[in-house]
């Protein structure tokens, strides 16, 4: 599960960088437009090819068009779902759950991670427990959450909270532990007490690493939620996909899948932008 989530997010991060870096280098306006056009073309070739294959293969009978309808039919179905307001309902339900879970994870895991990273005794006490839990797939615990918290919103948000907590927690711990010891020595030589050392040195130094955790958690939140919604829900994108499949509304099912990837992409891009905003000094250091 971890691999599936990490792969897209790792890919997304570097692709966004060349845009920002390469743009000012191009010479004249025409050249710049041409360059931009070439880059857009270059980067959209694979997507366009996928769309073309999806459109053509079912029409040529290479795959069963009942199970894989052409892209255009799927898009028509998607448009219908959007017009009827069904899509908005499902997206709203899913986003509410995943944002609630992610938000709660940020609120609990960051303070906990700061504590564990800072107080060695606490780290020694908790690290065996953390090792066990972080190596337990979140979805394996879904039945447990359902048993204890029921089929409603609580169990879903709790599962998202659980899944999102790990990347945030582990990155926060790593961020606090990874602070340059020289900076701590230097601050200590100025007589800073523990609290102010933490506030003025440890925390700012750890922020970029913490944000990497939040970005990973953003991807987890959607992945885990969709799976949870497939098990027991009356709304949400996971429910839409699953329900459509049961009812043989195959274009609707693909509409749900497309929407899920689109949301995943948007959430990740937002978090990447936010991450970069908070870690300019670190990005520049590694580049230069």
């Amino acid at each position, binding site marked *: 599960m971890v691999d599936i989530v990490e792969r897209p997010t790792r890919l997304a991060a570097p692709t966004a960088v060349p845009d920002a870096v390469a743009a000012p280098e191009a010479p004249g306006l025409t050249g710049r437009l041409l360059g931009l056009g070439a880059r857009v073309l270059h980067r959209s070739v694979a997507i366009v090819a996928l769309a073309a294959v999806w459109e053509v293969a079912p029409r040529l009978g290479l795959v069963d068009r009942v199970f894989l309808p052409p892209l255009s039919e799927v898009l028509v179905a998607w448009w219908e779902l959007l017009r009827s307001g069904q899509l908005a309902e499902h997206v709203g339900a899913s986003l509410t759950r995943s944002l609630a879970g992610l938000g709660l994870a940020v609120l609990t895991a960051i303070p906990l991670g700061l504590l564990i990273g800072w107080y060695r005794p606490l780290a020694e006490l908790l690290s065996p427990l953390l090792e066990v839990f972080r190596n337990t797939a979140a979805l394996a615990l879904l039945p447990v959450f359902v048993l204890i918290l029921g089929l409603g919103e609580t169990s879903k948000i709790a599962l998202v909270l659980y899944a999102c907590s790990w990347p945030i927690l582990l990155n926060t711990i790593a961020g606090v532990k990874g602070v*340059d010891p*020289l*900076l701590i*020595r*230097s*601050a*200590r*030589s*100025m*007589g*800073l007490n523990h609290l*102010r050392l933490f506030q*003025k*040195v440890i925390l*700012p*130094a750890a*922020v970029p690493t913490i944000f990497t955790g939040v970005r990973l958690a953003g991807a987890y939140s959607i992945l885990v939620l969709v799976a949870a919604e497939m098990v027991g829900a009356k709304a949400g994108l996971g429910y839409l996909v699953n329900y459509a499949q049961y009812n043989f509304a195959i274009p609707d099912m693909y509409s749900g899948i497309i929407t899920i990837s689109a949301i995943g992409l948007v959430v990740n891009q937002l978090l990447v932008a936010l991450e970069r905003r908070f870690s300019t*000094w*670190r990005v*520049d*250091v590694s580049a*230069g």
Partner: protein
Amino acid sequence: MSTDKILFDRVSKSFPVRATRRGTAGAVTALDQVTLGVRPGEFLVVVGPSGCGKSTLLDLLGGLIPPTGGQVLVDGRPVTGPGLDRGIVFQQYALLPWRTAAGNVAFGLEAKGVPRSERAEKIAHHLDLVGLSGFADRYPHELSGGMKQRVAIARSLAYDPDVLLMDEPFAALDAQTRDSLQDELVRIWARTGKTIVFITHGIDEAVHLGQRVAVLTSRPGRVKQVIDIDLGDRDAVEDVRSTDAFRHHRHQIWTLLRDEVRAAQAAEGAAGSRAAHTGAAGGRTPAVAGADARRGTPTAADPEEARVG
């Protein structure tokens, strides 16, 4: 003695050594009964072979570590912890990468609790003092090594410590930058009247900067000799490094250090075999034994030494 700004009073420091496959746990003596006084407003340089405990001396003075024996006195009061009366400048700058040059200078002022309204003026003044007025808004990664060290010096001076402790501050810089920063440091010292304790392994740097130079022995570190440096009127000659006085002091220190460097090398060679087995005393015995054995037999010096002598 009572007039000393800083006094190391029979200070010893040993570090525990963890057990390895080849030997048991023990302790290494970094400093052994060091007694050294620094006068108010003095520029004192400490030189010694690598690993002789130079930096330990500075950590003790900075209050970052406690001594194992003896005490460090500043203004007659024993050092119990870090304090803003002593500013440390580290070799690797230790600037906060998320703060600008001005922000880094402000850091020390915040630590001291200087009111916000007074900070801007102090920051501007001290950045100007180190010749970085135009670089207040630059981040450390946008500055060269020499500029970073200037910011670090400005940061330490801004909170107005009585004593400036410098731990090989120019060792990571290229030769030209080092030369110009040395000149500037002497100028800043003359202007501010701070007491400066400067750690280095460079003989030239020691002679150039110091009013007095304390030469340490190789591990365990002791004060071998304290030399008064008299270069005459620095401003009278264009290139102070080429004067007879400079060469004389340089040779003096080099001679003192030669034996210690050899002892240190001998100790490193012996450390692998003997020190590992002797445990607690291991860190110390081979060093002394090696030094005694080599002292009587002058062996061929390496090219660098030949040129210096």
